[in-house]
């Protein structure tokens, strides 16, 4: 494994963390939008309390991945910014509206509360959809020089992401984030009724995730041949699929049996394994079909320094993160103060 592979792996770890932590914050917004029934207000209150202390820290995983990408793989970042300008701009609008609206909603004036909650919820739905779509565009090999770029505006800037496969990955990401959020919320709920609400939602979205995976796989047959071949024929494919399936089944069974902590770990593992399946299927390419990790890598001097900084940063960061989550996610939830 080369230095560049190592750094690429770290970037993917950051994306993985963003998906299982930040992704769940988006998923929370989706459940806010879909809050239903007599306990609607309590569901929303729980979601806001769960997201409040951590969403900004969770969001930084994305920023970290982006700055590491442009430092260590500048040509890949340049090509992504060019070819996926439109969906990434839309993702940014979603990120801005989600974060601001959440803060305005929680800290702002009382009368407009519900309006901000609505903006927060809709942005939470749109952003994962578009993020997943960009991931789908990358996986399908459409962001390569040998991709579908036929030269005209549509072919170069729209077709790579506005297609059934990329959109199906967007849908998959949305359901995955909603699933994660529902699973986590069963643990954070203080009263049994709300917990059961989210248990039902977690089970439903877990099944939905399976269906979405089938759709993605079917569409990949002619849209993303490399992903398909990686996922089906590679040497590591069978053990990885078995692990992913085991995590998925564990998550659903644990939810059924109301073993909330087991469900949380299994759900996070399931989503992580799916992500690593994608990463392995397109290795050694950072932007398939033509830009490899080795070709896109910055000079070794930069990579070595970044790795040193990553080690030093991790020494600072991991205990801080542990502290944050210990305070807000492991203690007795009943002492959460609502309005700091």
């Amino acid at each position: 494994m080369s230095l560049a592979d190592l750094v690429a792996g770290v970037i993917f770890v950051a994306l993985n963390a963003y998906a299982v932590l930040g992704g769940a914050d988006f998923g929370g917004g989706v459940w806010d939008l879909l809050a239903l029934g007599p306990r609607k207000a309590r569901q929303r209150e729980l979601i806001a309390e769960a997201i409040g202390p951590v969403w900004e820290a969770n969001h930084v995983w994305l920023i970290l991945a982006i700055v590491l990408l442009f430092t260590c793989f500048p040509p890949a970042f340049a090509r992504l910014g060019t070819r996926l300008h439109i969906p990434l701009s839309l993702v940014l609008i979603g990120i801005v509206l989600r974060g601001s609206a959440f803060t305005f909603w929680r800290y702002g004036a009382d009368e407009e509360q519900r309006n901000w909650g609505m903006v927060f919820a809709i942005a939470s739905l749109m952003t994962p959809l578009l993020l997943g779509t960009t991931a789908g565009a990358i996986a399908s090999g459409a962001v390569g020089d040998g991709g579908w770029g036929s030269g005209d505006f549509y072919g170069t800037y729209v077709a790579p992401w506005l297609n059934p496969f990329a959109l199906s990955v967007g849908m998959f990401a949305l359901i995955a984030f909603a699933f994660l959020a529902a699973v986590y919320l069963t643990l954070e709920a203080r009263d049994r009724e709300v917990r059961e609400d989210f248990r039902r939602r977690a089970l439903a979205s877990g099944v939905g995730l399976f269906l979405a995976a089938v759709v993605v796989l079917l569409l990949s047959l002619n849209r993303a041949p490399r992903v398909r071949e990686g996922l089906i024929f590679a040497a590591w494919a069978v053990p990885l699929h078995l692990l992913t399936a085991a995590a998925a089944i564990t998550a659903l069974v644990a939810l059924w049996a109301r073993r909330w902590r087991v469900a949380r770990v299994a759900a996070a593992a399931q989503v992580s394994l799916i992500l690593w399946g994608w990463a392995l299927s397109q290795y050694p390419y950072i932007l398939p079909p033509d830009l490899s990790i080795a070709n896109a890598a910055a000079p070794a001097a930069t990579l070595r320094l970044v790795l040193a900084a990553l080690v030093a940063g991790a020494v600072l960061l991991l205990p801080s993160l542990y502290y944050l989550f210990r305070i807000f996610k492991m203690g007795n939830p009943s002492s959460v103060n609502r309005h700091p």
Partner: protein
Amino acid sequence: MSDLLAARSQMAVSLAFHIVFAIIGIAMPVMMVLAERRWQVTGHAIYLDLAKRWAKGTAILFAVGAVSGTVLSFELGLLWPRFMAFAGAIIGMPFSLEGFAFFTEAIFLGIYLYGWDRISSRAHLWAGVAVAVSGTASGIFVVIANAWMNAPTGFELVNGQAVNVQPLAAMANAAALSQALHMTLAAYAATGFAVAGIHAFLLLKDPANAFHRRALEIALIVGAPAAVLQPISGDLSARHIAVHQPVKLAAAEALFRTQTGAPLTLGGWPDAAARETRFAVHVPYVLSLLAFHDPHAVVKGLDQVPVSEWPNVRAVHLSFDVMVAAGTYLALVALWTGWLAWRRADLAHNRRLMRALALATPLGFLAVEAGWMVTELGRQPWVIYGVLKTADAVTPMPGLMVPFLTFTLLYCFLGVIVAWLLYRHIIRSPAVPEWREFYMPGGGTRETGKETA
């Protein structure tokens, strides 16, 4: 509007918007921590109230800063992919460090905002200190990256490609120290005076309000020393650019002709075609004196480079004068305040000082925006000074008007909302009675508790 101009405008709007929240994110945590510390030392609840209210304001502003900062990190690739393809490996390092600093800031701000009842008061205060320190550090890292664009180093240029890349040398570029110092001081001065100004304005109506008096004190402790030091740091910057970026200095001073004993040009209306500045006040020798500490020194004018490499002289010169005027005003008010405080005068009852402070509210931010105009417009037509032209860095994607207008509208909308929320937050400042005896030695009972406008 050309695509290049649209891209530059979008970047300008994004930076101008983000910088306000970024500097508040640097300086507000310092005030919040000072207030909390005073609460722990004195036991006066008024300081706790102040810390909590500032924390709430910080929460709103930090969130907007975090998301608008995310936009900027993506926009580097969305608008300037060729700049990033060239520079990413050289100057990504400070951005990566900034990522860690920002991470730390976000983690401990979450702990600070939501942890009042969950951790010990000592741990809580230290969480606030971590926010303040990492906020300052992340600002410094980003400014170092910008300084490299002004003083590129740490690589060799071979056939248009950067080789022999040395990221640490790039970070230690010639402009890094003066720019980082200038911007950090600016963050404290601008935020400190903005907060002080708001409370001074409210004290004009109600000089006995303990809440506003304590807030004013802490805001001035943060803002005033920075404002006094800023002209010294500005001198450092000016002397740096006189040597390393003479075109920027020439544009800032509207100096068209290289000359010895160069005059300082105040105000006026630069006319690049006629190579003169109409209606300006020229003070002989002073520019040479300021730039080189020698009244007869030669200062390079715009005639050193072809007109095609001139920045927009009018915009740079006027921005520069706005920055200097606003900064000078803040420094003078800071000195006046310091003098009164040293004489142990009752600041809040000095109506002229309160008026001067109220007037200062927006001036720090104005100076910051104008200063960024100088440094960014003054570097044009280069994105990396002397290495890569902005026009060669822009994305090939057409139709950039659309994202420019979209983000401009989004930011206008957010700006209005934030202003409205802060206004509501401020006018709901606590009423006086609880604290009056603590702070009016005469035990006055004036009913002035309602400071709502």
